[in-house]
């Protein structure tokens, strides 16, 4: 794995507003606008292996993006081995064992450097990442057949035949452990860690890797997780690029050709739901920093919640709409207390957190927390005004096209539909769904999901109260 580059930490330019706003784990996405009435043509079919394929043809640029999602996110990590899914994802690049039948252009065993060189030589990229719910394989290549064929062959080999060399994992465990220790010298990471464990309790959404949990992960664990994860019947493949349906079908077949042949789809263990909080909790963590970092929130809602659109619009007004949200207005614009202040939901297969965040000079922390709490309480109690609702709808509906105006953004949206099994016309009906939301819908949904009197508030780096 390539550890992130220290050089990239140089503060090269200073953006004004809300570049710092965190986006939700699963971005909702979008549909409509005059041209989308013609519908965004998502083609969908299921291959004999059971894999569900989703395609948007886009022929303007000779490139292809492919994302494969499987049910192997970190929510399945054992508590004692928190980080297991992420580690496995990272170690996919650490080496590939020889092809059992010696077939194809990359049949020989490859070490991590040979893999890196091979991708560079193709001008293509292949990455693996583990989120809370899904593990994702992402391939980007030019669509020229000679290059694309090789890229598909290499990706297929890496996915199916990782070597998981002992020495590489031992080295990367040291690097990761050191990076974790380093990260905890920064208030932004400490507050995240404390917030996650307070909101999620024992639920896996709250797990954080530590040097101790990494020390309990061995290469056998990686092999075991890998063996149980590659099930075509549970996978979705999303493709955006300069390919026809027939070409895509052939590409997906080759990408997954080395996966185990699963006649019967094995069921995976059920992951419990996130428990709601029984009382408010205020944590004040002493820390030597120039700012106090504040996170406030609680478990939110699941992605399949019927009020998804009311909650999307509601959070947009409360703290998701950048400059024009209530939180930004009250904390930043009116009082100058924080550069960045935001709220977001993280709906997933389970009720991901609702989070309000800000950072401020330590002596102002109590004031900023009080203002943010007031804003959240008032919004949950009273809901938005009609004018706020209309402004939010104008922005969301009017700006819908901005959510799908590149292959990269389309891929995110198609993968969202595929993973969450949303209807194929989801994007086409998105603006209508937003347009239907009323003030009463927002007030009812926010009041159902949020309990300001039972939220967690974590403040790192403020003076003792």
């Amino acid at each position, binding site marked *: 794995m390539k550890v992130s580059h220290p050089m990239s930490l140089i503060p090269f330019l200073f953006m004004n507003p809300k*570049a710092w706003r965190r986006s939700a784990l699963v971005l909702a996405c979008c549909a409509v606008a005059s041209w989308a009435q013609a519908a965004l043509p998502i083609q969908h079919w299921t291959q004999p292996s059971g894999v569900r394929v989703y395609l948007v043809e886009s022929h303007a640029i000779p490139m292809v993006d492919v994302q494969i999602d499987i049910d192997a996110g970190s929510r399945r990590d054992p508590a004692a081995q928190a980080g297991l899914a992420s580690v496995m994802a990272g170690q996919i690049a650490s080496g590939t064992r020889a092809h059992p039948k010696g077939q194809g252009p990359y049949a020989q065993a490859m070490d991590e450097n040979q893999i890196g060189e091979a991708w560079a030589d193709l001008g293509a990229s292949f990455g693996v990442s583990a989120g809370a719910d899904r593990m994702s394989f992402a391939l980007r290549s030019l669509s020229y057949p000679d290059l694309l064929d090789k890229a598909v062959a290499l990706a297929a080999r890496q996915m199916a035949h990782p070597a998981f060399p002992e020495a590489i994992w031992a080295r990367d465990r040291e690097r990761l452990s050191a990076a974790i220790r380093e990260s905890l010298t920064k208030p932004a990471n400490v507050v995240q860690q404390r917030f996650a464990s307070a909101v999620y309790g024992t639920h896996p959404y709250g797990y954080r890797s530590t040097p101790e949990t990494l020390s309990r992960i061995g290469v056998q664990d990686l092999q075991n997780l890998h063996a149980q994860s590659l099930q075509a019947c549970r996978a979705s493949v999303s493709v955006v690029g300069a390919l026809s349906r027939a070409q895509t079908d052939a590409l997906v077949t080759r990408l997954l050709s080395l996966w185990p042949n699963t006649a019967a789809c094995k069921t995976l263990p059920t992951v419990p739901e996130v428990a709601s909080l029984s009382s408010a909790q205020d944590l004040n963590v002493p820390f030597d920093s120039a700012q106090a970092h504040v996170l406030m929130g609680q478990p939110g809602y699941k992605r399949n919640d019927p009020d998804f659109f009311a909650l999307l619009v509601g959070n947009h007004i409360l703290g998701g709409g950048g400059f024009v949200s209530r939180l930004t207005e009250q904390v930043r614009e009116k009082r100058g207390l924080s550069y960045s202040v935001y709220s977001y939901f993280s709906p997933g297969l389970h009720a991901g957190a609702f989070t309000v965040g800000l950072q401020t000079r330590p002596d102002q922390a109590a004031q900023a927390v009080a203002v943010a709490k007031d804003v959240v309480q008032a919004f949950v109690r009273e809901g938005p005004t009609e004018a706020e609702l209309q402004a939010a709808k104008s922005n969301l509906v009017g700006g819908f096209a901005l959510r799908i105006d590149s292959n990269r953004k389309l891929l995110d949206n198609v993968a969202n539909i595929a993973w969450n099994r949303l209807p194929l016309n989801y994007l086409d009906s998105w603006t209508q769904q937003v347009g239907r939301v009323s003030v009463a819908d927002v007030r009812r949904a926010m009041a159902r999901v949020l309990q300001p009197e039972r939220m967690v508030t974590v403040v790192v780096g403020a003076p003792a109260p």
Partner: protein
Amino acid sequence: MKPNFLLGLSLSAAMLASSCSAWAQAPQGQPKTAAPPGQAAAAQAHTFTLANGMALWVKPDRRAPTAVHMVWLRVGSMDEVDGTSGVAHVLEHMLFKGTPSLAAGEFSRRVAALGGRDNAFTAKDYTGYFQQIPSDQLEAVMRLEADRFANNQWPDAEFAKELEVVKEERRLRTEDNPRAQLHEMLSATALTASPYRRPIVGWMSDLDAMTAQDARDFYRKWYSPANAVVVVAGDVDPLQVKALADQYYGAIPTRAVPERKPREEPAQQGVRRLEFKAPAEQSYVTLAFKVPRLASLAASPEHDDALALTVLAAVLDGYSGARLERALTQGENRLADSVGAHNGLMGRGPQFFYLDGVPAKGQSPEALEAALRNQVQRVATEGVTEAELRRVKTQWVASEIYKLDSVFNQARELGVAWTLGLPPDYGPQLIARLRQVTPAQVQAVAQKYFGDDSLTVAILRPQALSGQPRARRAVSGARH
């Protein structure tokens, strides 16, 4: 990771840095097209100059009914003077605070109501403002942007509040980030006369002392039509955009752009070293070598060297498994947890070639410093292989196609080009030039630019955290 949008591009974190030279604005009249060679799929940029000297660059991309509209000024933190460092960035924040016909914050509310998103950014070389919008709202944002470009106005109370926001931004990005602070110190140590020595966000004491008048003066001095370009990319017709630009921007009275003092950096005559103590677990070392910059695309020995240095950085660190990573982060006695190489290449001010790394547990930053230099020495002695060069060039050529996927990035590239005095098709031209670099040239620059005399070394010395809140100095500029 920091969502710092200029750092997102692989090829071009290095290349976007920035530089000056007064490459003339394109001629008036009929749109002049710059056709990138070998890019049939890519639309062409159309360049115009308005009657008041303001430039207009337009790049159609009709894939979706959206557009991005930007105004870039050839003014950034390097145009500030001591005592008011950070004023270019503070002013950028104040552009959101109104005009005689628009209340504070109303600009963003209007853009949001149009379905748009807006933001702005400040760098050493330039300042930029942008809106991403449905393309049928282009006229509305051009009207808004032209209004604040010409008529930005706000009460002192708005300035006082926003200055506190900017100080919070400095605390967030720099003061609680030891490596960012180290780089701030590195610039201040490696440079003496060049304004690049000051941080973009400004020193805290300069922010404490900044007045509303400082921002207004900077605005009057630099926000002239002759010092700016309007960039539009997306689902637009260039001639219609030209008509709108004439209407909204063309009428803004022009003013002469102030003379820019050269403030040349004197030649460095010996190694400089600095140590920085901060709360951290890991040490960190960075080496900055002064190198030539690519001031234009004209052929010259210095420009050829600048290009070869960029190829050298890519050979050292351009892909997973490249030389530095392989030599220093792998194996039994590995020295580092991470390493990097980066060539500045372009900018209005002096450029550096950086080597940096985080020592592995039990290894010293000094040992890593020596090992990083040794890797460059290896190239100087042994050269690089054709396979390595082919590999990094393949990646650049592919990246020229991938970048077409983002309308925003295409507009940004145009803005960078104009502020640095480069032509609109400099991207593909640059790739073509990089492809011509030979192994011998890479070896030659490795031999030429990595001695002690132009080097500054910065080392972060980790200190244990106290675990307790920091004792606060008296806070100035208290707020209501």
